């Protein structure tokens, strides 16, 4: 009997605790003080870590301007963002507004009813504030409806960063005392040689952080473009293709092997920071800041972090070339673009749109540029004269290295239905295999990768009605100029 009573007591106690917990959970569910003051809280997801300062400031300003709306931001880890968004939609927990994940393709996100068409708000006059050709079928418009919009202007996505202190210690200076910036492959090699010999091996000429298996490909991408290969080493979707022939050319374009051999030559001379394959990009950024190596490849996202740490003694160059002269290929982006979109099932559509519009406002774009985060889609925000920070001014000055490239979805909107399966090993894997000596024959590995990727594209095209390989071929493309894709041409 006593045992029965104790069980009941135990169950009652457990139920009481559970109830108390549930109540406690309910009472704390509305979040912080700003949320409690606002009548509506919208949830917002992004993967902006180093750009968080800009986002947080925008949220603060937005909430001041819209006292009835609170924005609850969640910054997800970038390499798992697509998975998390997908899982959130499956469990009906998707945020009200979100940065558009890179996969699945935007067309698929729309066909799955993830995103809301914005035509109710994104009227012609609203669209009119953007540059010409910003809203393109198959890019940010699907079935004639606007789902997202471009946020940033085309810009070089990768640069070679040069540490002034390391260069000066190695005697790599001009007559006026400024740092001698390497612009060709030979100059980069020469600078590396000087750093290695002058430092007695204590400072590595190069370094990167490849723990996420992506940054080694940045080196290939940057150097191969300078040599005239337009696809670079981009991965995912149809990026990385050479649109002049409508195929991947890893195995057939000699530049790939040349750059890989160059990287191997540097590696064999112990010029790369030895832990580069296992440290993260963030760690590499910190090590570069401390002068553990003299050169690294990265994007403009490096700069805010370094600025925060008061490290400003560096320069950047982009697209080093095999020999003196201008780069033979550039960085390419589509007309139009994507940044954030609104969840199709949000119960707070108007509030989500208000935040959407705020992010896309010229003022927010101006602050984006002022904080050195990147270029704004609004040209008036990108005036180099208004940029006072030297490394960011260098970045703004090299904006000509990025232009609009061919866009198959403009030529044939049905291309948006092509779902290209991933190919493994991809270029990141091949590079890691070659770099670590596990793949002894780089040319054979590149050939195999090329064949697999082109085969995957061929298979995907056969499953997409109304699409042909010709849709991906732009034989009249001049790599150094912006390309205008004509519908149906």
């Amino acid at each position, binding site marked *: 009997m006593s045992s029965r009573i104790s069980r009941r007591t135990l169950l009652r106690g457990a139920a009481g605790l559970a109830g108390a917990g549930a109540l406690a959970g309910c009472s704390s569910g509305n979040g912080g003080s700003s949320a409690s003051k606002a009548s509506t809280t919208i949830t917002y997801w992004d993967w902006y870590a180093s750009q968080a300062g800009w986002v947080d400031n925008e949220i603060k300003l937005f909430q001041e301007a819209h006292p009835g709306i609170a924005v609850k931001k969640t910054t997800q880890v970038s390499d798992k963002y697509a998975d998390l968004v997908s899982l959130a939609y499956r469990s009906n927990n998707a945020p009200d507004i979100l940065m558009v*994940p890179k996969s699945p393709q935007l067309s698929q996100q729309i066909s799955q009813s993830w995103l809301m068409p914005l035509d109710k708000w994104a009227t012609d006059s609203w669209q009119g504030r953007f540059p010409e050709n910003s809203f393109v079928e198959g890019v940010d418009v699907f079935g004639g409806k606007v789902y997202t919009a471009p946020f940033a202007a085309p810009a070089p996505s990768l640069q070679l960063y040069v540490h002034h202190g390391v260069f000066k210690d190695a005697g790599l200076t001009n007559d006026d005392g400024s740092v001698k910036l390497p612009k060709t492959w030979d100059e980069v090699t020469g600078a590396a040689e000087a750093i290695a010999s002058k430092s007695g091996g204590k400072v590595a000429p190069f370094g990167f952080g490849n723990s996420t298996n992506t940054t080694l490909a940045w080196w290939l991408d940057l150097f191969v473009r300078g040599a005239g290969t337009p696809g670079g080493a981009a991965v995912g979707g149809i990026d990385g293709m050479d649109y002049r022939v409508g195929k991947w050319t890893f195995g057939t374009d000699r530049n790939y092997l040349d750059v890989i051999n160059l990287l191997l030559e540097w590696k064999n001379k112990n010029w790369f920071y030895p832990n580069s394959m296992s440290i993260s990009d963030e760690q590499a950024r910190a090590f570069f800041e401390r002068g553990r190596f003299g050169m690294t490849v990265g994007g403009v996202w490096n700069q805010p972090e370094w600025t925060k740490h008061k490290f400003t003694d560096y320069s950047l160059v982009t697209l080093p070339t095999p020999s003196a002269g201008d780069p033979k290929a550039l960085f390419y982006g589509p007309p139009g673009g994507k940044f954030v979109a609104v969840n199709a099932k949000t119960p707070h559509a108007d509030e989500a749109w208000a935040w959407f519009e705020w992010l896309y406002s010229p003022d927010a774009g101006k602050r984006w540029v002022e904080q050195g985060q990147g270029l704004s889609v609004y040209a008036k925000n990108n005036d180099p004269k208004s940029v006072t920070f030297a490394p960011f001014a260098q970045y703004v000055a090299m904006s000509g290295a990025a232009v609009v490239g061919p866009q198959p979805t403009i030529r044939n909107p049905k291309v948006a239905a092509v779902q290209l399966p991933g190919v493994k090993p991809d270029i990141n894997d091949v590079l890691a295999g070659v770099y670590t000596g*596990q793949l002894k024959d780089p040319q054979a590995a590149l050939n195999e990768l090329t064949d697999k990727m082109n085969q995957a594209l061929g298979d995907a095209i056969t499953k997409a009605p109304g699409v042909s390989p010709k849709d991906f071929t732009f034989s009249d493309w001049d790599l150094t100029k912006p390309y205008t894709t004509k519908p149906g041409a």
Partner: protein
Amino acid sequence: MAVTAPVREHSTDTARAEPPRSAGRRRARRRTYLWSYVYLAPMMVLLLVFVVYPIIASLGYTFYKWDGIGDPSDFVGLDNFRQIVHDSIFWRSLGHTFVYAAFVVPIQLVLALALALVLNNKKLRFASFYRTLFFLPVVTSAAVIGVVIQLLVSNFGDSINSVLLKLQVIDQHVDWLGDPHFALGIIILVGIWHTFGYNLVYFLAGLQTIPDELYEAARLDGAGRFATFRYITIPMLRAVGVVIVILAVIGTFQIFDLVQVLTSGGPFFATEVVNTYIYHLAFGGSNANAVQPDIGLASAASFVYGVLLIAFSVVQVVVLRSLAKRRAL
């Protein structure tokens, strides 16, 4: 007869008298069992939802090309199985998994047994403290351990290398987690340390079931320490030992978190084990852009791995039983 009859009578009487008492006992027993079922129910529900259902559901997915978005519709028959069987990375991952198990299980068991013997010494002071200390890694999240080790190796890798270079243990700088010759070895070392405490506790529990009288009798018979260990400890631990071996092998085949956090299977699949391989198929690569998730292929890989593990477990049980029988003879 005189003896048996009363007994039979007695038993008949008992049988006649039993119904009310027996029914009461049955009710009491049922009540006891009912509570057992009530207590078991949550675990069973969780097991059904998170183990049984996914296994059955994933079997269905194996026949589809599906990225996890929407409902599966692209039926591909057995193509996913064909792909897995012909994928060299899958077999490489399987090889790494077996290498991991082949090193971790014997080293960990020998170390755990040795330490258990030391900690089982009743004269040892602070034995409980040492037990807690050795068990601590077990209760520490593998993710935390992975991050800490990764930071240690990458931040202090230079210092470690400098010391080893001075001692002439190595002749050039080693990227411990980025060099395919060393990365799996580091994971094995961390794996041994991480789950070592489990086996230590199991062995300690086994050692404490051995009656002291046996050791006293052996000592009286003049047996030394080694003879006592050889002829009393080992035979008495055999039953527990078989379970520990099976659990250790199963545990090592489930290696995932340490690999995912330390190397994510890289560089170039040099540390990819089957569970990270399946994970990367199901959720894409570390670069989400690089590989579209393929739930169908991941399910097929899981199924193939499951079948291989079942086959391996059956062989393991058969071998262990036959060894036990041979020893019993």
